[in-house]
């Protein structure tokens, strides 16, 4: 494996009206790294993920994926052709807080849809891949269930399977347990742990689950008001953070448990 980071951003900025949500973010993430992203609401965590997934467009800055130009905006930047963006985007997958399952399709079809129509697999191949992925997240018996019939935890598993079925190199998780009943959270975190341990996927996990972040990530980023205030390994982050704001945030969040 070479030294080119899987994700590299330089000067990434995004504002919604007068609100600056991301300020000139510079970030390098090596391939296979598991990164947890923590911080107060509105600090820009989700926005970073949404920009990487091209759900929003940056106001300024550049992004490279595995060394290839992916996003470019602002003065002096060479824009990247849409076809290139679409091609590179296939390396990235995302799981959402509110699942966003397709309600008019069964679990199996939800997972098959993109392999079939985007990756252009044959129906038989798409079906097989979908089945395998659903089995791997523990839903082998729910292939023909409709989203409305599934619990929150099951819905999120389908969502994870759906993203994984496209075999992305980068997985983005946007607070995927925040909308779940507490007793279902553990199951999802176990899934995430399994994925992290397999070591093949670069993972960015926006989360409030501090124990998980500490135990299962390689690196933690603390976001505050649009900048990365602290960027270090889990142990240091939780035992000896450098900034007072980091300390204050952790005290507030951990104290509430």
């Amino acid at each position, binding site marked *: 494996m070479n030294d080119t980071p899987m994700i590299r951003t330089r000067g990434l900025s995004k504002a919604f009206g007068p609100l600056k949500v991301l300020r000139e973010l510079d970030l390098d993430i090596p391939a296979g790294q598991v990164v947890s992203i923590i911080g107060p609401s509105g600090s820009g965590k989700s926005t970073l993920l949404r920009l990487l997934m*091209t759900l929003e467009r940056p106001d300024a800055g550049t992004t490279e994926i595995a060394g290839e130009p992916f996003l470019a905006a602002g003065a002096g930047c060479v824009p990247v052709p849409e076809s290139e963006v679409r091609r590179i985007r*296939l390396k990235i997958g*995302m799981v959402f807080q509110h699942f966003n399952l397709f309600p008019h399709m069964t679990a199996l079809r939800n997972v098959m849809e*993109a392999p079939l129509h985007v990756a252009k697999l044959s129906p038989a191949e798409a079906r097989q891949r979908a089945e395998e992925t659903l089995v791997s997240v523990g839903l082998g018996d729910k292939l023909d269930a409709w989203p409305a*019939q599934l619990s929150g935890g099951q819905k999120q598993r389908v969502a994870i399977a759906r993203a994984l079925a496209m075999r992305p190199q980068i997985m983005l998780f946007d607070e995927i347990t925040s909308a779940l009943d507490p007793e279902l959270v553990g199951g999802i975190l176990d899934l995430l742990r399994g994925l992290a341990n397999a070591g093949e996927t670069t993972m960015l996990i926006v989360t409030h689950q501090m124990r998980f972040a500490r135990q299962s990530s390689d690196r933690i980023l603390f976001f505050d008001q649009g900048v990365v205030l602290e960027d270090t390994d889990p142990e240091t982050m939780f035992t000896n953070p450098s900034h007072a704001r980091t300390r204050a945030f952790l005290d507030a969040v951990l104290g509430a448990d």
Partner: protein
Amino acid sequence: MDLIPALLRGLGITVLLAAAGIVLATILAVLAGSAKLSRAWFLQGPAIAYIEVFRGTSALIQLFWFYFVLPLFGIEMHAVVAGILVLGLNAGAYGAEVVRGAVQAVPRGQWDAATALGFSRGAALRRIVLPQATLSMIPAMGNIYIELLKNTALVSLITISELTFTAQTLRADTLRTTEIFLIVLVMYFIVAQGIASGMRALERRLSLGRDVVVRT
């Protein structure tokens, strides 16, 4: 009664006109509704123009325009063609707004998920969003189809021998006015009810497996 066979023939023409009109209207509604949502001006502009013009003028005016004025510009067409075109264009304009509203009502998260999986905007619309929007469109489209059925009566005024034309002819011949019009009203009513139940059945079928309240 001896009036019935003649009226039934007229009814047959009415149903055919309505069916053709409904097909055309649905196609136009989906195309124009989607185009209006597009970010490309050359798709959005014509869509808006089409919708505003055909909603802003009445079907009868449009009918006369197609049948009497277009020939002056060299575009001649058979009355039936003009009739079906106007029925479809008129209902399609109203339908386009229904389609647009329904697509906009699909939660943003569905578009996000589709983008995250690599679907292009067009593919996301076709495969993920439109199928979901379709369910919520059905009641309003049903009303539009019934309006179209009612508008078929107008084509009698450009001499197409559908039900209303037949009724007027029989009235002039037999002077059994009340009977004729009552029968005709009942016939239209029955066809309209047919359309309404068809739409309800479609709604039930499309909401299979969905967590949706379906009106009975």
